[in-house]
């Protein structure tokens, strides 16, 4: 309704909290990608931070969504993995007490139920090294950020 620019078919969303070190890797990557917006005129880059359910609206009725987040996958810290929603099962435990928790896979499920889910959703999960309070990434992830950008670029061309 009041959006300042028309919604594009492809969206890249960075999730996470930049106050908790590697938790914010999705946002750090989006900040870098946003500086190259001119190379991707048909893509929206969105820093969604820790906005759990807002994701439902950010992906609604797009053709493709790419979601970047810190992910506990049992891999080596710094590992990036590309996967689709049906390749993984959530092991996240929700208390259901609070709105301040969200499970992306449940949000996607709701999006499907509502008939507005993008045909293609790609995740890039990055295994964190540190989730301690702090605004900087761990050296392990920081050293690999250019690699992460290359992975995501490939997804957009």
């Amino acid at each position, binding site marked *: 309704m009041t959006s300042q620019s028309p919604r594009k078919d492809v969206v890249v969303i960075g999730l996470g909290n930049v106050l908790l070190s590697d938790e914010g890797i999705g946002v750090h990557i989006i900040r870098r990608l946003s500086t190259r917006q001119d190379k991707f005129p048909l893509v929206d880059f969105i820093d969604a*931070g820790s906005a759990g359910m807002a994701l439902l609206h950010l992906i609604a009725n797009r053709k493709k969504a790419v979601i970047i*987040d810190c992910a506990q996958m049992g891999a080596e810290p710094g590992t990036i993995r590309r996967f689709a929603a049906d390749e993984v099962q959530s092991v996240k435990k929700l208390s259901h007490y609070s709105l301040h928790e969200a499970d992306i896979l449940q949000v996607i499920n709701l999006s499907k139920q509502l008939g507005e889910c993008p045909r293609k959703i790609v995740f890039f999960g990055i295994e964190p090294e540190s989730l301690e309070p702090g605004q900087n990434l761990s050296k392990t992830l920081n050293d690999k950020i250019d690699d992460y950008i290359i992975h995501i670029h490939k997804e957009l061309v």
Partner: protein
Amino acid sequence: MHNNNVDINVHHITRVEGHGNIVVNVTEGKIEKLQWQVPEAPRFFEAMVRGQSYQDIQTIVSRICGICSITHSLAATKAVESALGLKVSEQTDKLRILMHYSEQLQSHTLHVGYLAAPDFFDAPSVVPLVARAADVVKTIVKAHRIANEWSDLLAGRTTHPVTLIPGGLTRIPTEKQLRQLQQTLKDTVLDLNKIAEAVLGVAANIPKFERPTEYVSLKQTNPPTYTFYHGGITSNDNKGVVLPIEKWHDVTNEYIVEQSTAKWAKWHRDAYAVGALARFNNNAELLSPMAQNAAKTFGLQKGCCNPYMNTVAQLVECFHIVETSIAMIDGLLTKGLKDEKVTSAPKAGRGAGCVEAPRGILFHEYEFDKKGNCVAADICIPTNQNHANIQKDFEKLLPEILDESENQIRLKLEMLVRAYDPCISCSTHFLDVKFVR
């Protein structure tokens, strides 16, 4: 007949880390243990802003919470402006209130629709509810989406606002955009009516439980307004006296308890409540006509002390927010929007800022050195102010429901916690997965 033995330990059952935990132990009909336990990470946010420029505080604290990011930013901005002696224009003030309203509507629709509604409809979560009540869920999603887009317009994005700076705003909407927003809000009234009708249809499932307590909220007397943003602090125990927000430590009186790493709060009694029901109980007569009407429909009256009705109070506030915003936009458009130059300069000082978060009154306080760098910070979130009240509710509620099944007891205790709309463990990663192929 009373249950002789009840053993509830939600934390143990679900292995939820970092969230609140309900522990009930009843042996031979005697309550041995009944606790609302809240593990909370140390308040590292306060340490994180120390040494930072006054210009960056609102951006950093906006990351504390994904649901109340605008609220945290506004509280911080007000505190910074108080410390530096900055005044904002009437236009800025109104646009900020509109921005704040957008987050209240976001959060309230999310709470009513996604967290509380499944309880009322006896569904495990909102996802299976789509199959059973598709129209209701779609209407809730629509209202939530409108609120999110409203935040986009005023705050620069849905979450973690980018338009707020000490002294003003970096960007304002066009008059055309405000007109569009106003029309959308007028259309939203119909959706709110649909949601209210659906909730009213299952309102019999809202537990009947009462416990008189102290309700603490903002109160604005000049002009009298149902406020989320301006005014001072009051309660139903404070004999009509409104304290300036700088006195907030006299209200919260935070203290440490053994069962929780989060601090608890008390004022005139051993516990108090904050949130929509507190605001309603202190200011109900100032609600907009549509909100008054919604309250009447649900039988919600000033003095209500059923904590489960907090969800209904939120729904009532949704009407107030939309109706008031429509009128505010009229006022802004009549005067015409102006581009305003914002300037500020560093200065030593200390200031407090207070706004109502969707889940209750929120305090920020900062001190700056002469270069404008933060040397001290103190933040008190609404959820911490509700913990003691939740415990006291538990202590009255459990003996009243001991003759119900263990599952029913657990559900009612969980619903009670949900009714307070708590902010327990924000900002944890959303993806925790194992690969299945």
